[in-house]
């Protein structure tokens, strides 16, 4: 009896997971069409903060959303779309997402890769020896968190009304 119910629960679980996965796959495909058109990201008001931040950022003329948020090596591209796709589809299926959106660990690594892709030249000296610990060595975003969107600091993502008074002198 108990086992039977457990099986049922498992089945339902697996079912939904597959569902989401497929959805994610489809979504991931759609996602790739958005590539390199930031305004497409901004279709979603959920992305407005980042979009308006990006407009003002040092990278406005240098990098689009996906220059930073999709990997620059073939292997990863597929994975990240699935991952972002999952979160995005998760949002569509549930309609729920946090008030303050947090980047996933995985996507943070993607961004790190992106920095290095473009800034290999200037960072080669500091980034040369990364035998210790994680392969990517130190995280650029520990100090340059705000380059993509917003004038806030590495430590802080100050809300709009504080950013105005917190700009670097």
């Amino acid at each position, binding site marked *: 009896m108990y086992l039977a119910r457990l099986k049922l629960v498992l089945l339902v679980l697996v079912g939904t997971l597959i569902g989401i996965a497929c959805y994610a796959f489809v979504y991931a495909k759609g996602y790739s069409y958005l590539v390199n058109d930031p305004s497409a990201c901004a279709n979603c008001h959920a992305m407005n903060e980042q979009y308006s931040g990006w407009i003002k950022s040092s990278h406005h003329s240098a990098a689009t959303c996906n220059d930073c948020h999709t990997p620059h*090596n073939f*292997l990863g591209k597929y994975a990240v779309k699935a991952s972002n796709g999952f979160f995005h589809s998760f949002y569509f299926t549930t309609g729920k997402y946090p008030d303050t959106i947090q980047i996933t*660990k995985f996507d943070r690594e993607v961004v790190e*890769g992106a920095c*290095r892709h473009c800034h*290999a*030249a*200037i*960072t*080669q*000296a*500091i*980034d*040369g*020896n*990364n*035998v*210790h*610990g*994680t*392969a*990517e*060595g*130190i*995280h650029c*975003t*520990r*100090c*340059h968190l*705000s380059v993509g969107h917003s*004038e*806030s*600091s*590495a*430590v*802080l993502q100050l809300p709009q009304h504080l950013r105005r008074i*917190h*700009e*670097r*002198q």
Partner: protein
Amino acid sequence: NIFERKQEARNPFYRVVELNDTVDDPAVWGKNFPMQYDLYMGTTDMQRTKYGGSEAEPRTPTQADPRSVVARSKLEQDPRLKTMWAGYAFSKDYRERRGHAYMLADQTFTERQQFNPPGACLNCHASMVTIYNQLGNGDRNKGFQAINHMKYAEARQYAKHPIACIDCHDPQNMQLRVTRPAFIEGIKTLKASQGVADYDVNRYATRQEMRSYVCGQCHVTYYFKPPDKTLTFPWTKGLTVENIIAHLDEGKIKEWEHPDTGAAMIKARHPEFEVWNMGVHARSGVACADCHMPYTRMGGLKISDHHVNSPLLKINRSCQTCHHFSEEELKARAEEIQDRFFTLRNTALDALMDLIGDIKANKNKATPEQLAKARDYQRHGQYMIDFIMSENSMGFHAPQEAERILGSAINQCRLGQLALHGGPEPSHTPAGIAEAPDKGALAGPEKTNH
């Protein structure tokens, strides 16, 4: 993995000279890395800040001490320190630290030499890798033991340079490495106390951790463990001042007897690493090098500023990378923290002076029990004050913890006086009122999600 292969490709290694573990002269390393070398040579500069930096004090060189410039004497700035360390080397001569370039000379010529210190002193004041290898025939640990057992004068003959490239870097690939057996052993015992067995720092530490560990080889409190004066970091129970006192008490360590009071004393020394660990910066994964060796652009590259000094002398590259407030504001914040620390530090020193004076005055009047208690309070209260005062950031590295230590030390000193004057037994917080957990755990990158 892909990334590392990329690295190999763009590693800018102009092998002008071949480097290996026999090359200790930084000038030779400098041929391969001229920019880092130039910055490294800059540690001879002396410029002060409100509480830190370094101030050049001219002096007329003598036969015994050829230095024409020294750092300011802390003893002259605050005479209470002489009473605090009466009977011990530090009451003779104790100055402000200055740049790495001076470490060997300042140790060689300090008047503390009159107390003929052991060779173990050299571990943190000279470039040691070649010395360890030479004395241990390739076995650094053996070499370390040899140095510990020598007299300072004897050991000193081997030293040619202050800390140099070879002490922090692997000559093959320039990656950071820990070369000091005392730290390798110390961090091992610490990790063990946290349930991590056989921790090998050079194998398991992340790169970000290494950016602090290389400093932790010297900027820590230590003692010379009897019988053979082995340089030891008292970390077996954790890094809080309470953990460290517990370790020293367990070992019945007595570094000197205070002449005014007869108390069995212990001395704290520059625990920057331990205190930094208690602060929110460490907790956020901010390493010593992030603030004291910030990146600087040179040519088309960004490199680490090897002119290690006060970050308040380079706020724009240090603090402002992470904090987008003006330089004046960031300086003001650091100084507000330091001022607040300095105020309570003075209250604590007053309490300590009162205790020492009180014991001295009552040596013959008080009962042996009373004296024993008062001396115990002095041993512990004074160590706590010493610990956080000989930490060199004037409270900045861990503002809240620094004041907590002072507050608890003040209590100890005053209780010592009360013991002498027949005050009642101190009461204790009733059980059931929750106690705050121990803070011994090593903070740092792994604790954060970056």
